């Protein structure tokens, strides 16, 4: 005679799949820490900004001749 319940509960394949998911619990969805990227990866944007800065900056002031 069973010690826990007189009637065996009935489970479905979906119950078994749910239990499998609980057993094989995935890792948390936090992102990995950011990885360092070499400076060269941002070189194109940096060069563009530097060029724009040079074009838009006022010219070097010249001292008037006496």
């Amino acid at each position, binding site marked *: 005679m069973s010690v826990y319940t007189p009637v065996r509960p009935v489970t479905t394949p979906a119950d078994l799949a749910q239990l499998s998911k609980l*057993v094989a619990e995935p890792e948390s969805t936090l992102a990995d820490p950011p990885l360092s990227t070499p400076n060269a990866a941002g070189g194109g944007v940096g060069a563009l900004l530097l060029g724009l800065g040079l074009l838009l900056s006022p010219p070097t002031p010249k001292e008037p001749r006496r």
Partner: protein
Amino acid sequence: MDASSCARDAAALADRVLGALRGSGGVGLADFLASRADPTAGLGAVRLVGADIFLPHVVLNRPLTAQDAEVVAASFEVFPQATEPVAPEQRVMAWHDWSTARLLATLTGDAAVAAPDDPAAVLGSVEKWARWSVAVAQLSSLAHPGATGPVVDAVAAQPQALCRGVLRAALRRDFVIASRLTRWVALTHAMGVRLPVNPVVLVDHVALRVGSEPRQLLDLAVARHLVGAP
């Protein structure tokens, strides 16, 4: 079956196992199941906690009562084992169940249970150590004192990947995975494998951050026992 009820019941059962390890008596599986509102979720919890329900018997040499053995057997009847696991979750479940059935057979004197398949099929390639370590963590119930078997051998053969995995989990602040992998690190240390991390310091580090979830506390209790820490 309600998955959240099953997870709650598993936490309650893990708490009972923790209490038994601290000397409060037996786990009392039959009593645990009788106290559950949903017996299906309760039996699911028995399968979810898996081989850990036998920790007081393994660690403290407590005898397994016939009633408790019947509850475990009933959980296998109600949730039949996958005969041909295909999906990754099914493979993890197959090894998790194997560990439970194997300890049950050892404690009851029944015939040995055949292992599911090649451990590489469930763990994956160690080259992809991050994914490999998550699979190892999912099989933490196989890492108990005196554990042997194909998965234990496969994990113990890769101490660097194991330690990379646990440090990655700690850096990600994923202390569910970290506590499970700490248990494997402790087992590997107990087997005499040289490790690139100090297992006692690791246990202390994770213990400060793991919170109060009974299943993680159980992982750390096993790890402490394996490294001989108080």
